């Protein structure tokens, strides 16, 4: 079986085979989650700590639920109110938690690369729940699972990713994953919200929604952050909605059966029209939330298996990791 990684820091380090392994296992957890008794013992006895240096409701809840359904002891640490405020460095915080012997550490941090740095210092498995503008791997995996279940495959699809690509870790992880799985990717948004050198990533870049959405199988909308709405990157909210907001007219350029995705939370009337978001024939936004729990269960299950194996080896070799 694939997926031998110690940590899940980004999609960058995964192979096609790894991704399929996660998605296949996640499929079984979707079934489990739909039962009345939603319980497995995959993480029984293990300790999972959620460290969120940035505010998050849905991702943290999703990870918490995923851990609990797998039988782990889950602890949430809101880092905004903790010793970080007292000047403790990231590494010291990590070392302190490490001394409590967690098995899974779920980390979100505002600085790109912060989760990589932390992973170097601890003995447990680290899951990146979003670091700066770098990666958000479980979001890309849950998007992939959603697409695969809706479209029957996660290959040879035309996927349009629209909006604030520059500041989006979701876009980066999705771009890498969809590229690895051999899809055709279009990035659409105003040039001020496109990162430099993005065309070298093996995707098409467009600043015109209608042209970009033409014949797309999947339309992935990105959240526009409030602080970027006025003057700095785009002239105004209303001009943005006019040119880049997804409405029925623009969506009509995509394939008839194209699905609409959004990582949430949505700004209705800014990047997406409310009626599109609620259209059960097009929008899979609620499915994404459901797949999120399953995918996170799969990721933690796989990492826990690797961790047990590693520790088993270490015991026979006489070294503790």
């Amino acid at each position, binding site marked *: 079986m694939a997926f031998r990684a110690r940590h899940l820091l980004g999609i960058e380090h995964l192979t096609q085979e790894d991704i399929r392994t996660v998605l296949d296992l996640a499929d079984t957890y979707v079934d489990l989650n739909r039962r009345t008794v939603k319980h497995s013992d995959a993480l029984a006895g293990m300790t999972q700590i959620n460290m969120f240096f940035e505010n998050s409701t849905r991702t943290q809840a999703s990870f918490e639920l995923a851990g609990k359904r797998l039988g782990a002891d889950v602890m949430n640490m809101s880092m905004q109110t903790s010793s970080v405020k007292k000047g403790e460095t990231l590494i010291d915080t990590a070392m302190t938690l490490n001394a409590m012997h967690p098995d899974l550490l779920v980390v979100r941090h505002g600085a*790109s*690369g912060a989760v990589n*740095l932390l992973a170097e210092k601890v003995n447990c498995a680290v899951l990146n729940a979003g670091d700066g503008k*770098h990666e958000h791997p479980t979001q890309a995996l849950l998007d992939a699972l959603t697409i695969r279940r809706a479209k029957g495959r996660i290959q040879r699809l035309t996927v349009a990713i629209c909006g604030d690509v520059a500041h989006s870790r979701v876009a980066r992880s999705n771009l890498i994953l969809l590229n690895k799985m051999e899809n055709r990717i279009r990035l659409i948004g105003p040039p001020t919200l496109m990162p*430099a050198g993005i065309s070298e*990533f093996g995707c098409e870049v467009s600043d015109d929604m209608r042209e970009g959405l033409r014949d797309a199988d999947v339309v992935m909308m990105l959240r526009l952050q409030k602080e970027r709405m006025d003057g700095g990157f785009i002239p105004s909210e209303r001009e943005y909605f006019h040119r880049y907001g997804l409405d029925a007219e623009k969506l009509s350029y995509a394939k008839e059966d194209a699905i609409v995705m959004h990582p949430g939370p949505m700004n209705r009337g800014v990047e997406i029209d409310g009626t599109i978001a609620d259209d059960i024939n097009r929008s899979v936004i609620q499915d994404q939330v459901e797949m999120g729990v399953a995918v996170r269960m799969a990721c933690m299950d796989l990492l826990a298996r690797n961790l047990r194996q590693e520790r088993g080896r270490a015991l026979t070799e006489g070294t503790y990791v």
Partner: protein
Amino acid sequence: MTLFLKNARLIDPEALTETKGNVVIDNGMIAAIGEMSAPADAEVIDCGGKCLAPGIVDLGVKIGEPGERHKESFRTAGLAAAAGGVTTVIARPDTLPAIDTPETLEFVTRRAAEAPVRILHMAALTKGREGREMTEIGFLRDTGAVAFTDCEAVTTSTKVLGRAMTYARSLGALVIGHPQEPGLSAGAAVTSGKFASLRGLPGVSPLAERMGFDRDMGLVEMTGVSYHADQVTCARTLPALERAKANGLDVTAGVSIHHLTLNEFDVGDYRTFFKMTPPLRSEEDRLAVTAAVESGLIDVICSMHTPADEESKRLPFEEAASGAVALETFLPAAMRLYHSGALSLPQLFRAMALNPAKRLGLPQGRLAEGAPADLVLFDPDAPFVLDRFTLHSKSKNTPFDGTRMEGKILATFVAGVQVYKNNTA
């Protein structure tokens, strides 16, 4: 006392030649060069056919005094310089507080006596390097400041900078600028482009350097000041530099050894020891500036030695301190350019010794009769793996830790006195 260095491969950056020969040192000066035999009373050192070159004149070294002595002192910087073949250190004024008064300059001049190599000081161009009021350029010059610079703190007010340049011009003082458009580079940690986007790090366009350079060239033309750009690191700045020189402006430019030997991808998985100011550039830029050193368009290679302690580097990339120690790895890193065929040894020493000395009006940097006997003896081919904890610098923030390098410094002489001898080579 007379010293006779025999059987050396002599690197002459003026004539751009390599010849076999001997050197006679008398009273701290080079008395003779050639095929002569040892004077009767001379102490003889056999160079064993290894390279003898003028000691490196390093334009732009950060030393932690005053204010950050826990990162580097004059003593440790001096030992590192001696071990790296750097015989003249030109110290930067970006200290705490900045070297912006004759009193602080006198203090560092006194402290610098601890070092076994020559140390000369630059002073800030504006008070506190804040870009608001010019410093006492006249007094500072009288106290020994060899150039005036605010280092990476770019003066945003063109009016202030123009006045400071006009005043400096009247005293014949050299102004060293940092070509960068600060509005664009604020908050940037890497060069914008594919790598920055992949890592999700804030980037600055390489054109920000050109814009800063163009602005400074306008001011140089307006004021007639002598100007040196501390680091020109991008291909797209080079035509502007060429034009400025062709137009007869008194302009020279430097580049750090890191920008000649590393590129943006070396940052890899957020390795903060590779965070520099300006950030490492693309491979195309690296090749272009290397070619510019070869042609002489870029005059000076410097180390941009910048000590940083572990605490300031063990942080997420954006928050981590910028800069790397380089005094001891300067020459071995430069040997990469020699071994790759990009630059000859005389060309390297033209940029590392002769040109910086000339720019500052110093007699150093030459391998000629009558020049000061500041020399480095090195083996360009000796391989080693760098262990950063063997460095003499107090700070160990080198990007070359664990790297295979070639080029060992065997001995360093300042004014005819041996200040370093490699006991392991």
